[in-house]
């Protein structure tokens, strides 16, 4: 029996903690708990608890910050009234109403589909050159920086915010939605495609280069075959996302089924709401199924 063992026998064993410093660990815990308190119950809730432990007096106020950290207001009487509406919504799902707003739904779906297809095609068309430019292994530095900048801007701006600005400039209608979705597609597709190009097998591209091929020929023979399956898969996925997004752009006036949905919500026509949501869900599922088949076939 070794000395090391002797010293350990009889001593308690504890799992080594994730954060080794005890101070940091406790500090982290306190900050997290304090945040949870302030975010949910606010300073008022915190004061109540401190009062329970006798640290402060009953009815203690923190002063100005009480208004800031107000916690989450839950208006129970409003919810009680709203629950009836929730039930109506569930009933609407049991009994969706496809017929009474059929024309609106048709028009909305038509616009959504049109926006989705057009924006996906245009978005992919622009994404490919940008992806090539944003791949460090084939693009020169200035081009790389510019393309990365375009991608970052596109990813940072929420679709809805872009749509709002475009609606303000271009007026209501699907054109604003189309441009919004095309722009959003670039951030998504170009980024993932660029990463794919950066990860690809260098030897194949080098082999093509060694034959004396030009830059375009290199892309065509060395890069394209490697990233093509991924490009098609991502495009299908983006088609799916664009359709889902087109369903909300209507909320800010950028065309599509979202406008019809918004109107139905405003009129509390939950039967129609349910019908539209079911159509959206069904379309998304069909698209997912199709893209699954296509992705499986090209692999």
């Amino acid at each position, binding site marked *: 029996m070794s000395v090391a063992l002797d010293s350990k026998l009889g001593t308690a064993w504890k799992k080594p903690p994730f954060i080794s410093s005890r101070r940091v660990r406790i500090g982290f815990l306190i900050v997290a708990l304090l*945040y949870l308190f302030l*975010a*949910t119950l606010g300073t008022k809730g915190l004061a109540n608890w401190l009062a329970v432990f006798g640290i402060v007096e009953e009815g203690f106020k923190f002063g100005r910050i009480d*208004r*800031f*950290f107000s916690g*989450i*207001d*839950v*208006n129970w009487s*409003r*919810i009680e009234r*709203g*629950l009836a*509406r*929730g039930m109506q*919504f569930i009933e609407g799902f049991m009994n969706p109403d496809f017929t009474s707003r059929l024309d609106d739904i048709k028009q909305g779906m*038509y*616009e959504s*589909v*049109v*926006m989705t*297809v*057009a924006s996906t*095609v245009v978005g992919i068309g622009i994404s490919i050159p940008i992806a090539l430019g944003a791949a460090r292994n084939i693009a020169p530095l200035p081009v790389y920086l510019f393309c990365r900048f375009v991608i970052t801007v596109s990813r*940072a*701006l*929420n679709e*809805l*915010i872009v749509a*709002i600005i475009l609606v*303000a*400039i*271009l*007026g209501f*209608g*699907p*054109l604003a939605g*189309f441009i919004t979705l095309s722009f959003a597609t670039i951030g998504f597709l170009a980024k993932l495609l660029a990463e794919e190009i950066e990860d690809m097998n260098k030897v194949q591209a080098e082999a093509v280069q060694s034959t004396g091929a030009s830059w375009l020929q290199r892309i065509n023979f060395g890069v394209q075959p490697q990233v093509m399956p991924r490009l098609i898969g991502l495009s299908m996925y983006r088609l799916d996302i664009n359709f*889902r*997004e087109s*369903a*909300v752009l209507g*909320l*800010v006036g950028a*065309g599509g089924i979202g406008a019809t*949905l*918004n109107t139905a*919500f405003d009129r*509390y026509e939950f039967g129609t*709401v349910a019908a539209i*949501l079911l159509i*959206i*869900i069904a379309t*998304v*599922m069909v698209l997912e199924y199709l893209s699954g088949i296509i992705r499986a076939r090209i692999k």
Partner: protein
Amino acid sequence: MPSIEKNGLKVWQVRDQKAQLTRWGMWFALVVAFVWSWQAISDNTLWALMGNVGEVTVDIAGRAVPPRWSYMDKLWKPIWDTLNIATLGTVISLFIAVPVAFMAARNTTPSRVFVRPIALLIIVSSRSVNSLIWALLFVSIVGPGVFAGLLAISIRSIGFCAKLLYEAIEEIDENQVEAITATGAKRWQIMVYGIVPQIMPAFAGIAVFRWDINIRESTVLGLVGAGGIGLQLSSSLNTIAWPQVSLILLVILVAVVISEWVSAKVRGAII
């Protein structure tokens, strides 16, 4: 290699004729779909009004700059609310997503016939509906405010997190589970010792990833009255207060950049 006879000569081709035709057919269909779509958009656009797009843009940009910095005083509280919607929403959704994921994963579900389809249904319906639409719904049920936004983000995130998590559960190393089973451990002990340690990195990654997305989404929930900075954006837009709009957009941009940076850092630290 396929080749065809042409004037008595063999001509090499990459694909045989049938495959070539299918390819052209698919490209043709794509072009037709695009032209048709573009036509439809064009028909619904008043091109006559587009003549002064440049002027309008310059006009709006002129009004929006400089941002009204003093409005910042009124934005701190909505920023705090937005952060809370995203963070609490992620936490709540994780609490629900974990059991749903265990019920949906083929190797941990209590019943493949009864429980698994229900779990998958929860995931699909949560995922297919955009958080803004969930927000519309909850605003009409619980009234406008942070609470509606919190519910919308939580419900929307369940499907996302549960899907990624159940895929991670299905990919675990079964040998480790088998080894724990062989010690005579009970069902829950097998879960805690054999499965949970294996999915911990995936879980943390998913949580941070979704939190990042939720920050972005909660900035616009206010547009439908579900709390956060979007409320200020909405009211500024309604009163055509462009200097305020530009300030809010700037704030959102900064918030998104920070959240992306934080999530990248945290993910880097975990994995």
